């Protein structure tokens, strides 16, 4: 580099020495043109950065041309060297151009790789997050399922227990629901007082109502056809109420127990024999459904 810069200086010094007395330094127009190209290339940082070697070659040719001119070598030789120098400057410029584009390619490639990497990372993060959400949902569903299955098991156990209790109450399934019949033998004859066996049965019912507070009962009294209607109606009322009172005494809620007498209506057997009349003298307890509803007569 430095060498090429010194050449023009030595040229000027030599030219001055050789042609002293002359009014001007000898000129060669292709060489002047080559110098001009060379100088503009030198002031281009892109050329200096990317094509220093190529520019050095142009500088060497220029130096040789300057030297030839100063030595007074034939014009053709100077022209040739100037021509070479000018084209070498062109080569340096093209080379610099090429390298700068190549650098751009490299940079763009790495930028693109980086973008892709970022995109992939973002995609992976999103997928991971989605997976976490799915996992959480699955966990929640599994937990809900576990609770539901525990509840179902408990409900089933409750239903099973209830069935056992209803069986113990001698409850029978009828069109109106479950019906517990307290027979005539559980009452003193023609009286509304419950015998101990009847009390025992009513106690079981009271326990059941306490355990399942959604249930209600309707206590219905019936008699046989012996005697006057009024007496029978009165007896059936009293027997039904006696059972109701017993239930309330045992802790049942008053609004959950309703009593009603039907007298000799709705017999379950004929009234012609003592045995069938006994069947008609009874108290029926209708158990509501799980929501407290009882089908009326």
């Amino acid at each position, binding site marked *: 580099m430095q060498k090429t810069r010194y050449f023009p200086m030595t040229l000027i010094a030599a030219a001055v020495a050789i042609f002293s007395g002359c009014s001007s330094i000898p000129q060669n127009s292709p060489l002047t043109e080559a110098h001009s190209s060379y100088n503009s290339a030198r002031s281009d940082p892109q050329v200096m950065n990317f094509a220093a070697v190529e520019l050095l070659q142009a500088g060497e040719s220029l130096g040789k041309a300057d030297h030839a001119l100063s030595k007074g070598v034939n014009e053709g030789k100077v022209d040739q060297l100037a021509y070479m120098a000018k084209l070498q400057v062109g080569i340096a410029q093209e080379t610099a151009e090429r390298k700068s584009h190549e650098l751009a390619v490299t940079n763009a490639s790495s930028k693109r790789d980086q*973008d892709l990497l970022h995109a992939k990372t973002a995609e992976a993060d999103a997928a991971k997050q989605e997976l976490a959400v799915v996992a959480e949902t699955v966990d929640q569903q599994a937990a809900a399922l576990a609770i539901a299955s525990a509840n179902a098991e408990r409900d089933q156990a409750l239903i099973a227990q209830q069935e056992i209790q209803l069986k113990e109450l001698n409850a029978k399934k009828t069109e109106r629901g479950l019906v517990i019949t307290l027979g005539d033998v559980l009452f003193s004859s023609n009286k509304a007082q419950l015998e101990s066996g009847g009390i025992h049965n009513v106690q079981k019912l009271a326990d059941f109502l306490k355990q399942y507070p959604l249930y209600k009962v309707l206590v219905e009294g019936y008699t046989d056809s012996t005697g006057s209607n009024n007496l029978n109606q009165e007896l059936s009322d009293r027997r039904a109420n006696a059972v109701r009172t017993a239930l309330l005494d045992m802790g049942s809620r008053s609004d959950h127990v309703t009593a009603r007498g039907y007298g000799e209506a709705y017999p379950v057997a004929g009234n012609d024999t003592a045995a069938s009349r006994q069947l008609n003298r009874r108290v029926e307890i209708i158990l509501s459904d799980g929501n407290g509803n009882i089908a009326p007569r």
Partner: protein
Amino acid sequence: MKKRCNAAQAMAEKDYVRARLLAEQAQINAQRAEAMASSVKAKKAAYALQKDSRVLRQKIDRHTQ
């Protein structure tokens, strides 16, 4: 091309000095043509890649929105 022909012609005419000059010129011309071709090729590659990268960038941006 022309210079090479001229150089060959000068050789044939046994004008060796001129033939040598023309041959040198032909060689340097070829070198510069090659440098130009390479630089154009690199330029095209750079532009194409920059365009591709821009498209890719837009795709990524759309995708991540």
